[in-house]
């Protein structure tokens, strides 16, 4: 087990596209354990993608179970070769990234996503995620395609899309 070094922009490798995982063998599982340890060592990260530590394979971990304000979540998700099959709604939220220190910005994401991915045993799973967890998955999956949240920034000042839930006192 080891905490891996996190690449930070402007490291060009963060713009590289990752390739699908072939066999999920012990080597891959050992790497995923290291990736998990790296995520847990970071400051408050709710997810990590393999390219952030310089491994260009389609692997992400997401865990929204410990947010300040509890949100719907599936616990710790290990997603191998994830593919989003459906996007619903749009919402603006604030994001930062372990690979882009000291900056946060507003990004539009789908409010809910349905996705397929292999689990650690190589079995295909389907998940329906919404809100903060859906955002985390989209953020991490962007890393697999060499995209950063900086590529998706919207106006700092104006929410183009208001929250779906409008509460009147």
């Amino acid at each position: 087990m080891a905490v891996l070094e996190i690449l930070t922009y402007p490291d060009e490798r963060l713009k590289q596209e990752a390739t699908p995982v072939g066999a999920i063998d012990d080597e891959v599982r050992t790497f995923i354990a290291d990736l998990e340890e790296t995520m847990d060592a970071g400051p408050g990260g709710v997810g990590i993608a393999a390219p952030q530590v310089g491994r260009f394979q389609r692997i992400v971990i997401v865990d929204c179970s410990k947010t300040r304000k509890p949100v719907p979540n599936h616990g710790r998700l290990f997603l191998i070769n994830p593919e989003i099959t459906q996007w619903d709604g749009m919402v603006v939220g604030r994001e930062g990234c372990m690979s882009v220190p000291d900056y946060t910005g507003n990004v539009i994401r789908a409010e809910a996503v349905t996705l397929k991915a292999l689990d650690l045993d190589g079995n295909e799973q389907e998940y329906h995620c919404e809100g903060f967890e859906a955002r985390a998955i989209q953020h991490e999956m962007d890393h697999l395609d060499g995209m950063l949240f900086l590529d998706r920034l919207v106006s700092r000042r104006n929410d183009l899309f208001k929250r779906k839930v409008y509460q009147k006192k």
Partner: protein
Amino acid sequence: MSHWYMLTLVGKDRPGIVAHVSAALFDGGCNLGEASMMRLGGNFTIMLMVEYEGNKKGLDDMLEPVADSMGLHRHIDRIDAELHHHLEPDVRITVYGADRAGIVARITGALAEAGLHILDMESSVAGTEQKPIYIMQIEGHAAEGIEALQSALDIVTSDGIEAQLESIETLIG
């Protein structure tokens, strides 16, 4: 030894001001830090952090030609500043209502007492001349928690002023 200065420029808005000013600063050997430009009431306004080797007089002399040519008032303060120390807001407050004297002072006063540290504030007067409305958006840090701010807002917004408060949960991933 270089120092940070806060440069403020105000004048009638026209295209190209940022480009001309930043070119003059670059040619004069300055580094730019954080900046915020806004158009307020048809006026161009900008505040920007400038790192410069010389003294205030030197910076002022450097800026005089470009500021005069673009009709800009300028103001320079030497500041203590550092980059890479952003504070993250954890709450966003939107307030709107019929424009009335004292609305900003009343609301921000109550929020300050309830522990709000404002990091970013923007307000506008919209509507018509006959029926102006005031809209304010604030992002800040709730030092005493969001519930304290909500309670404060509930008290000051009782008469025709609408306020919404939402927490900002920043995703780090």
